[in-house]
């Protein structure tokens, strides 16, 4: 911009995982405006409603500006030295008294790769694998589901590749509302004549453009996917050459779907058998086809199995490893992919190497310069397990940018657990619902107030530079973790002074990031897609073009069995409660519920109910209703819409309350909670 003293800094949006560029207009260290990055190869300047409102997060009056210590008489502002000394003393004492497994660390998909890497490193150098983050609540099933199938659990194709698809099958995914900028490629594909099939209990804006909408009953996706595979095999529509040359284990999967005819699936899913037949034929015959799935698949008691059912369908039709095809789990947060890559997971070291693997531990210990045996060989506690153990075996918790009191199932119990801790340290932008239970709250810098790399849903690693100064005394999380580590006597292992230094260490720790150096990524206008093992490697937008990442290079079919959700509607709780997002809000709402524009769009908790159900229960549009499940009850406004199927109630999870209702059953492999299907009843007030 020509204006005197004004600079334009390109940052990566802090909301969802599309990785959009947002240009900030900066004067004297303060953002004075926002402009559209029209020359960006990522988003071409487009932003969603949240992206447009992003400046409200900087200098927000609610931002934490100084460390706060909880006292009997309320919050007391303290200096950084005092705060960090006290935190280190408490963590050190609890570790000495109860052992390292009494410590827990919640890392964050809202923080940079460098910060996630540092926090998991701190946890492990303290002798604990109790480090995990919110991917546990959204796409943990993608990791556990796809890792043995494809060799890694990440989107196989870049999001813009969707425009090349001739068939798009979206299952439990609503990008029109949740990733509007990515929806442009769905729209573009449709403009070019692609077939769009959407399976969702609600007729979402994504389904508006669908050629076929399959209103599947929550929690029965596997039955639908199985029936489709059944049809494809029965009619010989599978890609036999691909199955023969690129996969193993097909026969067992064939047996698993022998009896899953569309007529059976109709009784389970509620989708007419004829539509299942049509969907199967369309998906199998129209290639290349992309299968996009999201939390409607992953957030179930059988999330891992549902992910594999998606993979079976994509593999059987040869839709992996080609442009315009692929398995696309659309990640929700700006760096949830990166936080997983960095090993902020209780069972995985940086680069997805299992903690149980002695060689992997030895390699990491050698890199970190710590004695052999420092990293424990057993997986640590997951997010939900840490919450359950809080105040029991877990005595101290460090939560960086996480708000479990709102995001975790059975939220009431989580809040009680946080209160029982001997020491709870929260690092955040705002005094969130969870941070109110903390003993010490440290003010963190927001996205544009710090530099670092972030990895979007399609493995695109981008650098987001510091554009403005943090408010008050807020500091980047990396600064906080490093200072805390040094006070805990780990200074020798935390020599890095800048995010660039940390990324250089990541280059050595994570093979897929080997060539993604700070120098390269700062100059790459559209970032670099991992795997990028060497400096001279161009990155890998499309995975598995020649070989899969499994030991024998072949993808593996896994037979999947369908079992109905653990809680089905009954006489006492006759409706099915499912949860999801609205376009104006983001996850726990700690950012968007503080943004006036977004609050104006969606001010409060509502439940979407079919008009016939409402009429039967005797309430109308806008009425207050009580939503009751076996876990708890909350009040909400009723929003009547035939977009939601009869018998289904939809509630957004951005407001405190929704997750007091959800089911606290977890998938046995992924440990992801079954947020998407619970039995409920509605009581008019």
């Amino acid at each position, binding site marked *: 911009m020509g204006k005197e003293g004004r600079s334009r800094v390109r940052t990566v949006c802090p909301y969802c995982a599309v990785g959009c560029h947002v240009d900030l207009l900066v004067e004297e260290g303060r953002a004075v405006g*926002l*402009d*559209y990055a*029209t020359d960006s190869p990522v988003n071409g*300047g*487009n*932003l*969603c*409603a*949240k*992206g*447009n*409102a992003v*400046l409200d997060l900087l200098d927000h009056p609610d931002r934490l500006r100084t460390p706060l210590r909880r006292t009997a008489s309320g919050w007391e502002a303290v200096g950084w030295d005092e705060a960090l000394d006290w935190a280190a003393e408490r963590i050190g004492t609890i570790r000495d008294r109860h052992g390292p497994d009494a410590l827990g660390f919640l890392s964050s998909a809202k923080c940079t790769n460098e910060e996630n890497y540092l926090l998991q490193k701190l946890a492990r150098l303290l002798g604990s694998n109790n480090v995990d983050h919110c991917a546990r609540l959204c796409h943990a099933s993608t990791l556990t589901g796809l890792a043995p199938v494809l060799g890694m659990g990440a989107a196989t194709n870049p999001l813009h590749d969707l425009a090349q698809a001739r068939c798009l099958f979206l299952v439990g995914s609503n990008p*029109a*509302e949740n990733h*509007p*900028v*990515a*929806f*442009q490629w769905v*729209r573009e594909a449709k403009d070019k004549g692609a077939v769009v099939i959407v399976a969702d209990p609600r*007729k979402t*804006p*994504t389904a*508006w*453009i669908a050629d076929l909408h399959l209103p599947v009953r929550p929690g029965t996706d596997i039955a639908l996917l199985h029936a489709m595979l059944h049809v494809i095999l029965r009619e010989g529509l599978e890609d036999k050459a691909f199955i023969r040359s690129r996969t193993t284990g097909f026969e067992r999967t064939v047996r698993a779907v022998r009896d899953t005819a569309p007529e059976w699936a109709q009784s389970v899913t509620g989708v007419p058998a004829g539509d299942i037949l049509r969907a199967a034929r369309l998906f199998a015959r129209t290639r290349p086809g992309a299968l996009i799935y999201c939390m409607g698949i992953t957030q179930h008691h059988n999330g891992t199995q549902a992910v594999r059912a998606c993979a079976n369908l994509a593999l059987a039709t040869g839709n992996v490893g080609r442009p315009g095809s692929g398995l696309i789990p659309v990640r929700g947060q700006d760096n949830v992919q990166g936080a997983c890559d960095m090993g902020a997971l209780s069972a995985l070291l940086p680069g997805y190497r299992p903690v149980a693997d002695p060689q992997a531990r030895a390699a990491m210990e050698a890199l970190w310069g710590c004695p052999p045996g420092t990293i424990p060989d057993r997986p640590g506690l997951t997010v939900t397990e840490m919450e359950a153990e809080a105040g029991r075996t877990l005595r101290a918790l460090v939560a960086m940018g996480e708000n479990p009191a709102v995001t975790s199932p059975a939220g009431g119990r989580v809040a009680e657990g946080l209160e029982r801790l001997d020491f709870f340290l929260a690092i955040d932008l705002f005094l969130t619902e969870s941070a109110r239970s903390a003993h010490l709250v440290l003010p963190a810098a927001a996205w544009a107030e710090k530099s670092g790399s972030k990895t979007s849903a399609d493995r695109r690693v981008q650098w987001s530079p510091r554009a403005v100064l943090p408010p008050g005394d807020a500091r980047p999380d990396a600064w906080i973790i490093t200072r805390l580590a040094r006070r805990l006597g780990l200074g020798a292992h935390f020599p890095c002074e800048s995010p660039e230094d940390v990324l250089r260490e990541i280059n050595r720790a994570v093979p897929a990031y080997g060539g993604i150096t700070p120098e390269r990524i700062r100059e790459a206008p559209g970032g670099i897609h991992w795997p990028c093992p060497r400096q001279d490697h161009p990155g890998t937008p499309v995975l598995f073009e020649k070989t899969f990442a499994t030991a024998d290079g072949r993808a593996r079919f896994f037979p999947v069995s369908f079992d109905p959700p653990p809680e089905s509607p009954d006489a006492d709780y006759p409706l099915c409660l499912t949860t999801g997002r609205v*376009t*104006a809000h983001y996850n726990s709402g700690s950012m968007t519920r503080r943004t*006036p*524009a*977004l609050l*104006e*769009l969606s001010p409060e908790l509502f439940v979407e109910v079919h008009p016939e159900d409402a009429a039967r229960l005797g309430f109308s549009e806008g009425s207050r209703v009580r939503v009751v499940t076996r876990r708890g009850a909350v009040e909400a406004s009723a929003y009547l*819409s*035939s*977009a939601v199927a009869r018998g289904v109630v939809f509630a957004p999870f951005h407001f405190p309350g929704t997750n007091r209702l959800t089911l606290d059953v977890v998938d046995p492999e992924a440990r992801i909670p079954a947020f998407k299907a619970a039995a409920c009843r509605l009581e008019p007030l």
Partner: protein
Amino acid sequence: MEPFLFVDFSRCIACQACWAACRREHGGVSRLHLLCFQEAAVPLACRQCRKAPCAGFCPEGALVQEEGRGVKFLEERCTHCGLCAAACPFGVLEIVPGPVPDLSRCDLCRRRWEEGLMPVCVLTCPTRALSLDAGGAVGRRRRAQPAAFPVS
């Protein structure tokens, strides 16, 4: 060439990006309205009518037809009487309440136009539901509507 905000609502996904962009650009009040229906959404903003009832009803001549730029608002002439809002056939010219009621109407981001920039709603829309139709057939047809057809 006359610019006209062309809305292809068959592409609209109700994502509210245009609304949020407009609200931000214009000091907290969006001049663009997004109407959501079952299975469709319609963004509505000033049509820049060629025979504009708002301009015809304004007692001060503060809204005038400007060749090449649609309806222009001359702020120095405005008395904030609010008659224009009563005259707008599409309800997209509104009076924002306050001690001095303010006029809210899409001016195709005139301030940006003077810097050579596109309207924010057009730039932000992910599905190209909004575009500038400069002198195109759609614009001519749509702009003729208020005078040509009654609204039912």
